[in-house]
């Protein structure tokens, strides 16, 4: 595409053309209206003058007869800027007046007419135009009174010239402005296109240029940049996840394969085969669990679970989970307690339950105090609270805790802090809880419970009245 072709295809340029047309139309109609009105006014003025003079001369005629009329006409015709007069006999012979020649036949029709004429004292061949009125006097005389139309003509000339100029100026300025704006826009769009092409080429770190004017293009570029930030973060997350998946799925898969191979090579009897196969199934079940957890996180993070949201009381979730895990905690020498207040939340009950279950499982696994106090059963507390900030579902243990420096890292996928390596687990529990909190517009917080960890899902709540509960 040529540069000019590109230019005239821009929206700015096309808009300019439309505006140009509209402005020209506007100017033309304004001038037209003005011209038409002025013409009407001038015509009215002439009619009035002619009528006035006619009645005066008519009086002269009735007072002083034809002689007096001739005298009056002659004297009026002598005045500077005089009107046009012509008096003819019944035979059509000129008796008095200042007209040398007329369009033939004008004197034959009584009434108003437009005509070409020459004055007696003018010798040029230029045609003059006049508006005249012919009347029949008693005795067969005819009297013509008229006025030259040059004024009207001149006015038309002025208006026509004004129209030409204004259209020319509008066109010139409009086209110039259009080209200027279009080129400016085109320049910026070209820059953006170039950047996006580089981004599509694979360089996700590129960003669109954002000007300082804050106009619509800058806002667009700003938003596109924000989108690119999000995409880049997602891509980075994806890469990290696929690396981690590769690692965390390949390790057990390798183990699985090795065991199967080993069993094939070494197992001597059915019992050994059986044991090997059972371990294989256990291992693959673990793999499936990891896989499911990853899918669930991905789903929570992509926001798909939003379809399945409803209002429910977080307190019920807390009590249900306490009830489900209490025997397990008991078996592990821990007291699982629950404290709740009504806390209505809009969300996915299943996901939130799972998130809390993960936190409770963590607390049961790691929540035993390093130095147990004699006679006091260590406890894990599930709480559902509602405050000005929103709904808080938290699980507090009094175990060894997580060092401040590790807290952020603990929420990442597959991260298992050194202390936990020996216990079973996928390293996905906290990431899922975190993803669930984010899905509900909140966050997962890990605080020091001195000693121990308080893991809190802090999410915006629903007003009790609003929810109608």
């Amino acid at each position, binding site marked *: 595409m040529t540069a000019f072709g590109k230019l005239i295809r821009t929206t700015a340029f096309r808009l300019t053309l439309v505006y140009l047309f509209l402005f020209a139309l506007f100017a033309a109609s304004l001038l037209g209206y003005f011209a038409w009105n002025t013409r009407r006014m001038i015509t009215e003025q002439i009619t009035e003058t002619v009528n006035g003079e006619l009645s005066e001369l008519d009086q002269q005629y009735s007072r002083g007869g034809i002689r007096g009329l001739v005298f009056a006409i002659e004297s009026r015709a002598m005045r500077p800027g005089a009107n046009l007069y012509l008096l003819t006999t019944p035979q059509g012979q000129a008796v008095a007046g200042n007209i040398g020649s007329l369009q033939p036949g004008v004197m034959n029709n009584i009434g108003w007419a437009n005509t070409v004429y020459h004055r007696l004292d003018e010798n040029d061949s230029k045609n003059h135009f006049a508006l005249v009125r012919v009347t029949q006097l008693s005795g067969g005389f005819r009297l013509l009174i008229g006025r030259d139309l040059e004024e009207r003509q001149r006015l038309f000339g002025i208006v026509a010239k004004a129209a030409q100029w204004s259209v020319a100026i509008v066109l010139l300025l409009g086209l110039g402005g259009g080209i200027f704006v279009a080129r400016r826009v085109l320049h910026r769009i070209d820059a953006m296109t170039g950047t996006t092409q580089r981004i599509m080429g694979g360089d996700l770190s590129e960003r669109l240029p954002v000007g300082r004017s804050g106009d619509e293009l800058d806002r667009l570029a700003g938003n596109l940049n924000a989108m690119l930030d999000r995409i880049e973060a997602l891509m980075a997350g994806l890469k990290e996840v696929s690396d981690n998946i590769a690692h965390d799925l390949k390790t057990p898969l390798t183990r699985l394969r090795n065991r199967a191979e080993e069993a094939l090579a070494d197992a001597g009897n059915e019992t050994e085969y*059986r044991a090997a*196969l*059972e371990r294989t*199934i256990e291992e*693959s*079940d673990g793999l*499936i*669990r990891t896989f*499911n957890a990853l*899918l*669930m996180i991905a*789903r929570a993070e992509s926001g*798909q*679970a939003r*379809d*399945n949201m409803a209002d429910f009381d977080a307190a019920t979730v807390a009590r*249900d989970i306490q*009830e*489900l*895990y209490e*025997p*397990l905690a*008991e*078996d592990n020498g821990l007291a699982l307690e629950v404290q709740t207040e009504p806390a209505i939340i809009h969300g*996915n009950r*299943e*996901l939130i*339950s*799972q998130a809390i*279950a*993960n936190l409770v*499982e963590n607390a*049961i696994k790691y929540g035993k105090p390093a130095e147990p106090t004699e006679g006091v059963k260590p406890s894990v507390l599930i709480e559902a609270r509602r405050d000005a900030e929103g709904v808080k579902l938290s699980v507090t243990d009094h175990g060894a805790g997580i060092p401040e420096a590790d807290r952020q890292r603990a929420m990442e996928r597959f991260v298992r802090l050194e202390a936990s390596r020996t216990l*079973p*687990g*996928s390293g996905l*529990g906290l990431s899922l809880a975190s993803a669930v909190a984010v899905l509900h517009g909140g966050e997962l917080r890990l605080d020091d419970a001195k000693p121990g960890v308080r893991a809190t899902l802090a999410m915006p709540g629903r007003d009790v009245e609003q929810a109608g509960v």
Partner: protein
Amino acid sequence: MLTATNPEPTSSQMRLLIIEDDRESAEYLAKAFREVGHVAELAGDGEEGLALAQSGDYDVLVVDRMLPKRDGLSVIGALREKGDTTPALILSALGQVDDRIKGLRAGGDDYLPKPYAFAELLARVEVLSRRRGGPSEETSYRVGDLELDRLSHQVRRGATEITLQPREFRLLEYLMKHAGQVVTRTMLLENVWDYHFDPQTNVIDVHISRLRSKIDKGQEHPLLHTIRGAGYMIRDGMR
């Protein structure tokens, strides 16, 4: 997939229709069902499956969600539209809660995400087939000398009254409703607790062992049995 200890058949023979496009999985399933004494027929796509389901008399349909020619949900939908209420279990690679709800709304009676243990599938299919047969809601259940009254919420073993927590009562109620059938941990979590996720730890086992200590402790014949590699079953051992 097949667990090391093949669960013994726990109910009378069933006629099954397996609609699954993956030949290998389908044949594996058919073989496994036949091994435990059931009759299994196969259909390789949705159209064939629908035709067979309409003509044959089956106790349970096992339907893969994604099928050639006709989607699994649409097969079930078409059957339900014609008033066919044969219980249908949907197998799906999509395991999420939303997909499950979609499957149940389309007329499925149960939903099992892939990959699954055969024991899990078998237990669920047997429960579905039983649901179809007998009177579904009884006011009391009885297994051996264990009695559960659903109206007064009373549980007795012989002459001794047993006090249960509400959840323990529901757990026992579910087990007794399906007495003589294997009930898996996931089935318990779904039906007693209404959770559809997979807990990482042995939460259910601990609940069962508490329940067991209340109903079986000190008894000559234990009623609550652990079925290795599958789940639990309540059954009169003297049978």
